[in-house]
């Protein structure tokens, strides 16, 4: 049988076509000499004869990259996504690339900024992330800390990048910068935002005294600035734009001009130090996040019986349907959860703004029942925080810490 990459001659009822076989299901897909792919119906094909076998592409030769003592050392940890990938023009497949040599060959600018090391720790769509992956990242960060690197960049799929940043922020108290970087356009295309995000992150790590977890992404549709965003207050606010990541109820930490490489801090930040690091990667597994909507039923809450924590993404100031008589079972459902030991926390699906437990009677009822109001914590951050608190603290302590600011997740002033 012929395989993808083989050069073949396809004879059909009315023509003979030469081309390279592409991977496909259903029709036979052929890449013509012109570069175009076409699909040929199997019914029409009389014969496929081999012209030459596919030659496996030889691995790129690793070029030794000299380390310069004067430069900072940065380790890039890859968790997946396509920040470093190439296209196989023969088969059209996108192939991820992770070795330091490959990273430098794709982004040669990096070697002028720092001595770069690169490691693959996971390879997945960010939607597939589980708590164990956050722990893996935290352990990888610790390994690099032991080697005295000056900073770490973590490449990450963008969909759940905000969750990972929050998780690392709670897990890692560290004296060096760890910057999460994603790309909204995959790096196999010339218009990818991967290079700029990566280069700006490297500049930020190499040239500033910042310590802690942060995110580096485009500030707007232009390729002019990247912003360094706070790990617990950043959310993906657009499905596809380059500037999808926004600081919510907060402002960015710094701005990096891609062209001039000028870095401007926009607020106070924690500085590098010689202090010891602390990594607490434990997380409670049975935690959930539920969104309030109209016409809810009690059983939607009952499914969380046995969960250690539940974050509610309430309406408005932090409400749930507990006013009308017909919705009484919902209130009872929530009370039952709390009585059976679930820690229930409240956030707002408005995303922008702060919850309040006393303006409306529905909130008063919920607060009286023991629901913890999380101020202006983002729902996703509250979810991660609750899991981390319950993994590391007793329930009572965790309950009180949910309403306190630990990593910048709660601001004491609402500036906007």
């Amino acid at each position, binding site marked *: 049988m012929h395989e993808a990459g083989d050069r073949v001659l396809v004879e059909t009822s*009315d*023509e003979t076509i030469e081309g390279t076989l*592409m991977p496909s299901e259903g*029709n036979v*897909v052929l890449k*013509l*000499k*012109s*570069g*175009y*792919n*076409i*699909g*040929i*119906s199997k019914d*029409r094909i009389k014969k496929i004869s081999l012209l030459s076998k596919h030659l496996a*592409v030889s691995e*790129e030769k690793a070029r030794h990259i000299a380390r310069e003592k004067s430069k900072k050392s940065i380790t890039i940890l890859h968790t997946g996504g396509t920040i470093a990938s*190439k*296209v*196989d*023009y*023969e088969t*059209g497949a996108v*192939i991820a690339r992770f070795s330091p040599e490959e990273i430098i*060959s*794709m982004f040669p600018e990096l070697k002028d900024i720092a001595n770069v090391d690169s490691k693959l720790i996971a390879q997945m769509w960010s939607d597939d992330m589980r708590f164990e992956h956050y722990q893996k990242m935290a352990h990888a960060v610790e390994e690099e800390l032991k080697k005295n690197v000056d900073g770490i960049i973590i490449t990450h799929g963008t969909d759940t990048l905000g969750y990972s940043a929050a998780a690392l922020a709670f897990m890692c108290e560290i004296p060096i910068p760890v910057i999460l970087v994603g790309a909204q*356009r995959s*790096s*196999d*295309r*010339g*218009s*990818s935002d991967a*290079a*700029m995000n990566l280069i700006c992150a490297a500049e930020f790590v190499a040239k500033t005294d910042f310590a802690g977890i942060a995110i580096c992404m485009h500030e*707007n*549709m*232009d*390729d*002019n600035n990247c912003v360094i965003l706070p790990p617990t207050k950043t959310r993906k606010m657009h*499905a*596809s*734009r*380059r500037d999808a990541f926004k600081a919510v109820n907060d402002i960015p930490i710094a701005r990096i001009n*891609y*062209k001039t490489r000028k870095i401007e801090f926009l607020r106070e930040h924690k500085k590098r130090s010689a202090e010891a690091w602390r990594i607490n990667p434990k997380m409670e597994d049975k935690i959930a996040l539920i969104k309030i909507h109209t016409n809810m039923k009690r059983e939607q809450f009952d499914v969380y019986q046995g969960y250690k924590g539940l974050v509610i993404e309430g309406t408005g100031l932090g409400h749930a349907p507990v006013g009308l008589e017909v919705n009484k079972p919902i209130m009872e459902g929530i009370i039952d959860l709390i009585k059976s030991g679930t820690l229930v926390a409240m956030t707002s699906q408005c995303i922008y703004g702060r919850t309040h437990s006393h303006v409306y009677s529905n909130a008063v009822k919920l607060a009286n029942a023991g629901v913890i109001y999380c101020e202006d914590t983002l729902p996703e951050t509250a979810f991660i925080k609750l899991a981390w608190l319950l993994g590391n603290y007793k329930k009572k302590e965790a309950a009180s810490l949910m309403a306190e600011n630990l990593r910048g997740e709660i601001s004491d002033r609402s500036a906007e």
Partner: protein
Amino acid sequence: MKDYKELGFRCGLEIHQQLEGKKLFCNCNTLNSSREANTRFERYLRASAGETGEIDVAALYEMKKGKGFVYDSHSEDTCLVEFDEEPPHNVNPEALRTALVIAKLLNCKVEDEIHFMRKIVIDGSNTSAFQRTALVGRNGYIKTSKGNVRVASLCLEEEAAKKIEDAKDFTKYRLDRLGIPLLEIATETDIVDPEHAKETASAIGMILRSVPNVKRGLGTIRQDVNISIKGGARTEIKGFQDLRSIPKVIDFEVERQQKLLREKKSIQNEVRKAEPDFTTSFLRPMPGAARMYPETDIPPIQVTKEMIEVEKPVSLAESAENIEKEFGIRKDLAQLLAKSGKLALFASIAKKNKNVKPAFIVETLISAPKEIKRKFEIEINRLADKEYEEIFSYLNEGKISKDVVFDVLIDYAKGEFDIGRYAKESGEDIEKEIKKICDENKGASQGALMGIVMQKFRGKIDGKKAMEVVKKYSG
């Protein structure tokens, strides 16, 4: 005259035709807008290496320039898809249908399954750094006076953004053109001489204009010519102002290559631009071959029997012939009608208005707008078919006279037409009035009398008729 066969002359065409309607991968209008931009952003593009580690020469050439790109657009003509901020939507079914009809007219074999590809372009003309393009049909042909010219391929693709400024640090593009559906027709190198290239381009143009939703007007169709001679190199010439310049530009390019050969200088495969003086200038190196990969955001399109078993439309050339016979007009007039896209309008008017001579209808539809534009700088082409129908029905019924058609057209264009101003009064009434004028101005010359009469009755009486009456009463 050169012996092109002896020279090893090889020549093929690549024709690009914009389609009417919505864009290929989003719901924006295809306006070729000129309104002031209200959105602007800046980008850089990178050349990414293929798996073989090689960067395409053309791509590398662009990247080395290290330039940024500035994109201007109006928010009503563009959306996030043109900004490369949203994946492409499904392919515009209207554009696909048109491509399949054209494939039929070009006698192409349509693919069983159409795959959109990403053709790498990093000169900034595509915000995504690639052009989405799909091979729709192959192995067609068109008939010409010098034999069949084979059609190698018909592709449906995205139009690129329009370059509006080439500054030192950046290149500026307008985005409203990006994403307009574009048909690309490439012929084999069957063209035998420069004149034949022009004939072939014209014939393909006629075929394209045979279907309703291709765009018309400046810049909506472009011809690229590929040429080589024995010992020379392949050059692709872009940017022809009009078809008439094709033979001369080709001839000059052949001479340029001959001169380089005589001087034993090396000739590069390259893309050149046709200049107004028929010479060509270097544009960029010829793009390499390995620069396409699948557009995975768009699933392959299964071409069903229903999709290709559309009735083959009558080509414009055939329609022109039919009109010529049916209405007894000259061949060149029929061709003019065909090229201007007014064949159907003409046929409809000529059928309904038997009292008006067909040749006069052609003249009114084709020459009058040009003449009015030249003399009065008024754009008559904006008139709707319905308005032309109305004008000719007035003529047919004798409500207005042939002499005043220009004035009527101008009034229509200005939206000021009022039949009351033109309606012919009864011959008797006018004759009485003319007699009165002649009586009141005894001794005045016939010319002077005519002046007074025509001032009063312009549009209501033929000049010839008026002269007769004046002669009758001034004698």
